[in-house]
């Protein structure tokens, strides 16, 4: 029981102080609450209605006609692009999120503590946060540095590319697909570096929060650095690891470069409202499902400190 007065207060109803606290609590969150209902909850429900109907515009007004699951059937049975794109997004998440997690943890471990130039390096590593959210980086990648390997079917655009990899085919007689793979791993890695800004910040904050005394105790017991990592650092920051994983998943799904996001945008610009919302709804449910699943699985391994 968090309630200090315990049982009796509960039986007697709430005290005056509690009532006052309740009122103030509501007052503080009231502006947000109005917005959350007006600009989030209501539109969400409306978009659920759109997804089940056919929307037609005539003159100034919109008309809805209930069509049941037609839109959903169309998405899954007729549209040839949706499912592959969705699979693509999911696959991206599956391979990117672990790499992002390990990478940002590594960087956080290197950046922790004080040493010469630590402010400079921290500033540099947080720098992607400023730019990566913008369209500038996407444009730079896709239109200026169009440097994907030519043999892949879908030209992927990378921030970096190592042209020498293509040369490997000729020199060592490596099969083309292996070169492609090496290309995508190496070049994709730099992309991932760029997506890890916020994650590094989150993990660094968490790592710096661990009290040095636990490491000192481990030192006295003769623990190696590896043991300290797995027995102290990782358990202590496990709540943040969950946050990082979920943030990365959402970030990857809502990225400007994501194919489904592009589809949703294109359809809504072509005034194909109901279809756009249907895709949006399915997509969002998928994300929610994935996040829930991750939360469920990882929740078992998380250790919250008792504060």
């Amino acid at each position, binding site marked *: 029981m*968090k309630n200090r007065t315990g049982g009796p207060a509960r039986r007697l109803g709430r005290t005056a102080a509690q009532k006052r606290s*309740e*009122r*103030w*609590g*509501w007052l*503080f*969150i009231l*502006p*947000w*609450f*109005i*917005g*959350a209902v*007006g600009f989030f909850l*209501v539109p*969400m429900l*409306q*978009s659920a209605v*759109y997804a089940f109907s056919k929307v037609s515009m005539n003159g100034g007004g919109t008309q809805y006609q209930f069509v049941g699951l037609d839109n959903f059937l169309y998405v899954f049975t007729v549209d040839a692009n949706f499912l592959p794109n969705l699979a693509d997004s999911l696959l991206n998440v599956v391979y990117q999120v672990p790499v992002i997690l390990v990478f940002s943890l590594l960087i956080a471990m*290197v950046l922790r503590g004080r*040493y010469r130039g630590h402010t400079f*390096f921290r*500033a*540099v*590593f*947080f*720098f*992607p946060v*400023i*730019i990566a*959210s*913008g*369209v*500038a980086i996407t*444009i*730079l990648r896709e*239109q*200026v*540095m169009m440097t994907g390997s030519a043999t892949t079917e879908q030209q992927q655009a990378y921030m*970096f590319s190592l042209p020498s990899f293509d040369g490997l085919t000729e020199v060592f007689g490596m099969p083309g697909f292996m070169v492609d793979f090496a290309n995508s791993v190496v070049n994709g890695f730099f992309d991932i*570096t*760029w997506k890890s800004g916020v994650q590094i*910040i989150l993990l660094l*904050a*968490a790592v*710096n*929060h661990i009290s040095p005394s636990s490491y000192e105790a481990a030192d006295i017991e003769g623990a190696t650095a590896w043991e300290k990592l797995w027995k102290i650092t990782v358990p202590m920051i*496990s*709540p943040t690891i969950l*946050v990082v994983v979920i943030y990365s998943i*959402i970030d990857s799904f809502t990225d400007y470069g994501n194919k489904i*996001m592009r589809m*949703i945008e294109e359809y809504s610009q072509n005034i194909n409202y109901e279809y756009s*919302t249907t895709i*949006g*709804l399915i997509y*969002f449910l998928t994300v929610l499902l994935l*996040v829930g699943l991750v939360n469920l699985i990882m929740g078992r391994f*998380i250790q919250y400190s008792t504060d």
Partner: protein
Amino acid sequence: MKSPAGFISTAVAAYQKRRLTVNYTISRVLTVLLRTVFLIGMSFVMLYPVIFMLSSGFKSLQDIYDPTVVWLPQHFSLEPMEIALEVLDYVSAVGKTLKMTIPSVLLQLITVLLAGYGFARFRFRGKKLLFGLLIFTIIVPVQSYIIPLYVNFKSLGLLNKDLLFYVQALFGMGIRSGLYIFMLRQFFRNMPLELEEAAMIDGCGPMRTFTRIMLPNAGPMIATVLVFSLVWYWNDYYLSSMFYNGSFPISVNLTSLSSLLKNSNMVSGIAEQELMFMRESILACGCLVTILPLLVLYIFAQRFFTEGLERSGIVG
């Protein structure tokens, strides 16, 4: 009285101790060396896009034709920059962006601070449910309910007005408001309770406690939220392209820069062929000038920003 055996054993111990310290020093030097090399290498990766933009944005046509010019332009040229500024309609677009961004950021900050404090320190019925709603607003992207939102704003007559963004920000649904509320909640929860208790005993009401005690102590965190918020509003492309028409903020203009360049009527006094070769430089310049205000802001705010984040205690 030391026996020879005792003497020998102390000598051995001393020798071993020295070897240990030598080993320690070597491993220490190696660690520092490795860390430095690693950090410098990674810094290059992080800064690469900016270096790239600076390098390719100022090349003259002569340098673009010349394959031996890789990083440093031989003939410095401002022409791509001029074209980019002209096609982007830079000055008026930045003005538009500022008019949209700054009030929104400030309004958003107020609401977000209030809500963060409300969630952190008060107990009220339905709080858990509301907190769930908050998490929902973070997870669900605006794209999945944009159309009803559009229709509603249209019926309110707010389309193509800055007021639309102000209203959204004021009512806690600005860009990424949910994330900030979450961050601030974690921050306020980590503040010691004693401060507020003392204030209450001295007769401060909750609002006064909040403005006089909590806010002054939340300085770095407020700076952090401000920087994030400015960045995300400035970089916003999706909402602006939805809700504005006619004249757009700078990031929307940037997305159409490439297609505008194909239409050579947009640029006066340049042959189509030359324009094609300069396309890359112009785009790099466009990207550079779009993020330039953010870069300047970051350089100045960097210290508060990183400190605030590290102290925010965003630990789940």
